């Protein structure tokens, strides 16, 4: 997994609550058997004026000029600012893959859906939940100031705005550790294979019907 330590990133505001993963990456792009290449289809139905399909050259498609990520001032954004319940719906990990492929490393919102939350951290994307008032204020500042950037310091769990204001954020310690070190979950778990085997043996004894190839 990609490490995340520190970032100074341009912020793009997506002013919409309950953004579902169908909206982040529509179903036709889920047919890919790869993990990469989803960036051009991030928010496909909002970003383009036509219907997208897999394998198409996105550069020749008509852009929706009203969509925030199509505005030149937000080109190169690495921090996405969003509203409550971001990432709800389908468990598709293609959603964080698309955000990552597009260039986002951080999403800030008042709340996130559970499965999306897990999936994002497994892909080196930092999700930062902040209270509604703070998010509202960041929306106002971002929209009012062209080139608005946030300094994101994971180690200190702190955001710094261009005016020097600092905002503390919460992150669970295990996920923080994995993100800072870029750790592979599977490797970590397999280091406990002894404990897993012991558990499995007891479990099989207690409920043998859960195992078919006894």
């Amino acid at each position, binding site marked *: 997994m990609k490490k995340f330590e520190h970032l100074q990133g341009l912020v793009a505001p997506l002013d919409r609550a309950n953004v579902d993963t169908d909206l982040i990456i529509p179903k036709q792009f889920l047919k890919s058997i790869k993990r990469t290449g989803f960036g051009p289809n991030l928010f496909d139905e909002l970003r383009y004026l036509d219907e997208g399909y897999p394998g198409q050259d996105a550069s020749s498609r008509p852009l929706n000029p009203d969509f925030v990520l199509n505005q030149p001032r937000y080109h190169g954004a690495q921090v996405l600012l969003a509203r409550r319940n971001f990432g709800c719906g389908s468990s598709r990990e293609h959603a964080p893959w698309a955000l990552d492929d597009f260039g986002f490393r951080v999403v800030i919102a008042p709340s996130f859906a559970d499965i999306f939350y897990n999936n994002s951290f497994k892909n080196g994307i930092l999700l930062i939940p902040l209270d509604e008032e703070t998010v509202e204020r960041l929306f106002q500042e971002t929209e009012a100031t062209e080139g608005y950037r946030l300094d994101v310091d994971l180690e200190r769990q702190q955001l710094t705005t261009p005016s020097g204001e600092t905002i503390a954020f919460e992150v669970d310690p295990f996920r923080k550790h994995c993100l800072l070190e870029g750790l592979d979950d599977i490797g970590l778990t397999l280091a406990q294979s002894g404990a897993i085997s012991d558990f499995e043996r007891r479990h099989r004894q207690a409920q043998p019907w*859960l195992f078919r190839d006894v």
Partner: protein
Amino acid sequence: MAGQTLYDKLWAQHLVTSRDDGSALIYIDRHLLHEVTSPQAFEGLRLAGRKPWRRDANLATPDHNVPTTIKERSAGNAGIVDDVSRIQVETLDANCESFDIEEFRINDERQGIVHVVGPEQGATLPGMTVVCGDSHTATHGAFAALSHGIGTSEVEHVLATQCLIAQKMKNMQVRVEGQLGLGVTAKDIVLAIIGRIGTAGGTGYAIEFAGSAIRELSMEGRMTICNMAIEAGARVGLVAVDDHTIEYLRGRPFAPSAEQWPAAVEAWRELVSDDDAHFDKVVELDAAAIEPQVTWGTSPEMVVNVSAAVPDPATADDETVARGMQRALEYMGLEAGQKITDIRLDKVFIGSCTNSRIEDLREAAKVAQGRKVADNIQLAMVVPGSGLVKRLAEAEGLDKIFVEAGFEWREPGCSMCLAMNADKLGAGERCASTSNRNFEGRQGYGGRTHLVSPAMAAAAAIEGHFVDVRDYDPGSARDRDDALSA
């Protein structure tokens, strides 16, 4: 010490190790796989030179991309016209073969939607942990199995380690007490719950559905309710074990053998919340007050009674909600104040992991029997959840009822729930759907989805617009027809 909830018990029974920081390793008993969220996981295993930890815990079937038309289906994988879809299904076949995982392939009669197949095979059992790279894995909680959707990285993790890194959720109980009205179903209960608590109301919780109305439900009805727990934000939905659970499982192919059965049943009987268990949140609904539900917007929480009107954004609690409602009205092509029963439809879809089981098809057939699909409905389709559901429905003659009424009777798969195969809505088309999500573009680019129960969908197909299915109880059609011919 307070007693334990059902969720607490399931969690404790699967805890391998726990860490000071609150994260834990839990053991996974059953892993269901389908073609969409598994290829990158198998590729990850291959690149790291790893093998599945326990082959027999895994069961796979293709469902999202499979065609539902008989002509295409009869050709097997070769009948999948879209190359990318076909490659995805072929990749699942190849991965299952090379990693020696049991798979019900496209034309195996046991193939179907993973969340229909698991319980139907008895591959979902009480007391199990069940995961799948699909958010509707919550369905299996109807069997008092700790079940939830996972992402593809977690699919790879479960394949490699038989475990998941997890954090304990909070406990919520949703109690539905009393008697449901005639024509009101499990789908209406769960839509009413989502309308009450919102699409994020269950975030961070495992929801246990309890109360007399839930205990009265069949296993099919309980699966419908648990299936949509995720639409209320909860990854996990649960129902305690009772006689319905045990009777449903008896004799299923993956169920315990006759000699293991008594011990299994004894263990399963413990899978209920203790009387003095603590829930962090309790929500209560009166079953008798629930009407048939219809969603009007682009989130499952945008739902009203069939007798109501499309709500006005001006009545919203806050500005973010009001803007969301306004955007939904525009996308859906509706006006605030419009009566739900005045909404005219173009297509009707009966199917999906929410409502494609035998009981769902029976309820829809009861409404369709002896009637005809309205002229303005371009397509009304019924897609059974599995090959075995299809066979049973045909043995009961349900297929004939549907076909005579003007519905298309299809082959099993996810179909137009998410339109990854050829079954989709065109831009601006309006559909009454028994599926679980009314998100923008979900059933096709620009498509407009209204979520309803199977009986409500069938009635809407007959009338060409929404109607209150309670005016449509079995027998009343015949009475009306008799009156007309007299």
